[in-house]
């Protein structure tokens, strides 16, 4: 048996766990670990320029691959800088391991240099956390951390390691545990068959059903089964912001995204449905609008791996706790066996009604005069030139909603965005993480001139590691979503949402970082310039697209209303 130091054990354990990449930033408390990292060549470390970016990059990698992302930061400010990224991953249930250095065990609690209570600060935003007390514990702690992060409802796990625990002069026997068992933690497997049967009977008897699915189907790799279920039943499907790609957006049974900026047909169908089958969703406030007015005539069938998500906001008539794949498999089997058959005439009638709502064409883009570019047109153009096959990450704001509405995702794990926490600054580092995972794929970050400035320092990381991310900046010279709300609810008083006179010249900026910049100001040159930019396959290109600054995102839910209550444009509402 080998004898290794704590730092060496950590690196070996990560390798034994199958880790390819670590995103991190060195500092005093992790120097022993960085030295152990230097002396091995199995795990590749990517040096970011800010710890927040390390967490978002690991997060993007995790969302795109399904594998946990790994982050290494130092104590104190290194740890606190990682917090926003941990919270982002927690809200969207992303598997992530964050290893933070800590001051020497003997100094803990003494307000030592760069000391912070990382386990305490991160407690409400982690699935679990560990403070390693002895070097011998490292292999088991790592094993437990990966097990917890990746099973059940996934989430981030923090491992806080005091510096003396990784001391290179103290060596210990190393053996990586083959399995792990936690008596207090069990992973829900199959759902309750009786409940699934009950749900299937209600589903088959439905006259106005909607299948409403979310991030859980993406995370649980349930897309193929979901598609099969929808096809067998012939029912309409809508996805949440987090669930886009779980069902092919170009399919005729797809109603588009639902919720605050969902399509007219998706929200109307939900409101007038008689059965809602929610899978891997949490009836978030951005979906339901007023809970009291939510889907008044519908029976709610709710499938989720986390029992705490069920009946949290909307009471489920039939709750089913289980993994999405096992429940969907069982549902498909039970549908085959059931004597109840789909009520085809009723469903046909339902589709007629839905097609009527579709005629509203709520995502229709009205071209602007004078060759001005509408932001929606940029996403449409992006979709066309990438053949719908890119990995698209986004930041947060209007551009995020436009990307969600107009880029038709046919595959899961292609749409990478911070849905729960809504973290500006997420998109660009996330796109780096995606690019590391898939060097030959097209990794695009759709952003705004506000969000991109929240992690723009990563342009240096992209140069160092030759990451040819494409940044599409919908530049409306304002914090667009804030401004939209100020237009609609605050009499157009733009309190601190505009800064046109102080925006940097992004082209010069990216050139200073050694990349290529392209500015597009006219609709007539949009397609050609975008195509040219994307043709530069081995370069990072920043595409600064000047768009109509007055554009709003529609449809938009009317606060306090039901799902059917929406603004459809600046002048029209339901």
């Amino acid at each position, binding site marked *: 048996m080998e004898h290794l130091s704590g730092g060496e054990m950590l690196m070996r354990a990560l390798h034994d766990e199958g880790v390819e990449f670590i995103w991190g930033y060195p500092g005093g408390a992790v120097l022993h670990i960085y030295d152990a990292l230097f002396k091995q060549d199995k795990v590749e470390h990517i040096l970011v320029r800010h710890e927040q970016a390390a967490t978002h990059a690991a997060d993007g990698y995790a969302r795109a691959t399904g594998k946990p992302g790994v982050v290494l930061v130092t104590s104190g400010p290194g740890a606190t800088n990682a917090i926003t990224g941990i919270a982002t991953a927690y809200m969207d249930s992303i598997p992530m391991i964050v290893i933070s250095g800590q001051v020497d065990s003997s100094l803990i609690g003494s307000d030592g240099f760069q000391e912070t209570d990382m386990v305490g600060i991160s407690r409400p935003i982690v699935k679990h956390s560990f403070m390693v007390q002895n070097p011998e514990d490292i292999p088991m702690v790592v094993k437990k951390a990966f097990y917890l992060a990746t099973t059940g409802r996934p989430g981030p796990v923090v491992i806080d390691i005091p510096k003396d625990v990784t001391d290179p002069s103290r060596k210990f026997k190393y053996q990586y545990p083959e399995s792990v068992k936690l*008596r207090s933690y069990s992973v829900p497997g199959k759902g309750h068959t009786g409940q699934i049967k009950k749900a299937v009977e209600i589903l088959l008897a439905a006259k106005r059903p909607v299948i409403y699915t979310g991030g859980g189907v993406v995370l649980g790799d349930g897309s193929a089964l979901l598609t099969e279920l929808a096809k067998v039943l012939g029912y309409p499907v809508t996805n949440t912001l987090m669930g886009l790609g779980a069902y092919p957006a170009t399919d005729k049974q797809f109603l588009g995204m639902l919720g605050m900026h969902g399509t007219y047909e998706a929200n109307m169908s939900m409101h007038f449905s008689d059965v809602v089958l929610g899978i891997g969703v949490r009836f978030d406030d951005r979906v339901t609008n007023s809970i009291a007015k939510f889907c008044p005539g519908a029976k709610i069938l709710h499938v989720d791996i986390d*029992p705490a998500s069920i009946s949290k906001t909307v009471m489920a008539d039939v709750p089913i706790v289980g993994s999405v794949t096992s429940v969907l498999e069982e549902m498909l089997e039970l549908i085959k066996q059931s004597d109840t058959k789909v009520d085809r005439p009723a469903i046909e009638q339902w589709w007629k009604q839905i097609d009527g709502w579709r005629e509203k064409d709520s995502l229709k883009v009205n071209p602007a005069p004078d060759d001005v570019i509408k932001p929606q047109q940029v996403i449409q153009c992006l979709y066309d030139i990438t053949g719908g096959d890119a990995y698209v990450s986004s930041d947060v704001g209007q551009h995020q909603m436009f990307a969600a509405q107009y880029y038709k995702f046919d595959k899961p794990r292609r749409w990478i965005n911070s849905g729960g926490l809504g973290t500006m600054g997420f998109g660009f580092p996330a796109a780096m993480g995606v690019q590391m995972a898939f060097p030959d794929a097209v990794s695009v970050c759709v952003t705004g001139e506000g969000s991109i400035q929240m992690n723009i320092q990563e342009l240096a990381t992209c140069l160092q590691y030759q990451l040819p991310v494409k940044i599409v900046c919908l530049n409306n010279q304002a914090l667009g979503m804030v401004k939209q709300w100020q237009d609609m609810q605050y009499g157009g008083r733009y309190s601190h949402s505009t800064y046109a006179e102080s925006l940097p010249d992004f082209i010069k900026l990216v050139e200073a970082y050694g990349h290529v910049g392209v500015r597009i100001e006219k609709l007539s040159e949009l397609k050609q310039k975008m195509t040219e930019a994307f043709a530069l396959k081995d370069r990072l290109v920043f595409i600064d697209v000047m768009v109509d600054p007055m554009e709003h995102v529609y449809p938009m839910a009317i606060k306090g209303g039901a799902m059917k209550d929406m603004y459809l444009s600046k002048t029209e509402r339901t």
Partner: protein
Amino acid sequence: MRHIISMLLENEPGALSRVVGLFSQRNYNIESLTVAPTDDHTLSRLTITTMGDDRKIEQITKHLNKLVDVVKLVDLTEGAHIERELMLIKVKATGAQRDEIKRTTDIFRGQVVDVTSTIYSIQLVGTSEKLDGFLAAISGTTILEVARTGVSGISRGEKVLSV
């Protein structure tokens, strides 16, 4: 409605703070909390009394169950159970009051566990209601200090909370 939730907790550093943190994070209230090791040194038993309707209590128990350090949990108020709380109370006891306080203590089956010429320290065990009742009964005297442990409890009959 008041609920008594009792759980077995891994005897790990930080476990208690996860439970308490969950309550503040999700805006649940804690009326009382008591925690101590059990006969199994790897486990602590923690008992919380909290208020809420059925839906809220369901959410609380679900979220507690999600905590990795929580091994097992029971809502004692769902079935027949025994609940006890211990109170130590220090009162001014002089003159005629000395006898009166002693008599009241006897009626509540409490004990005077420490005494000086002017002070009684009384120990009382029972349900929280009984302890409240005692405090009301001696409200005429000068209460100098009250220390209550919070509620601890156990199910009646065969039902046990164990690993």
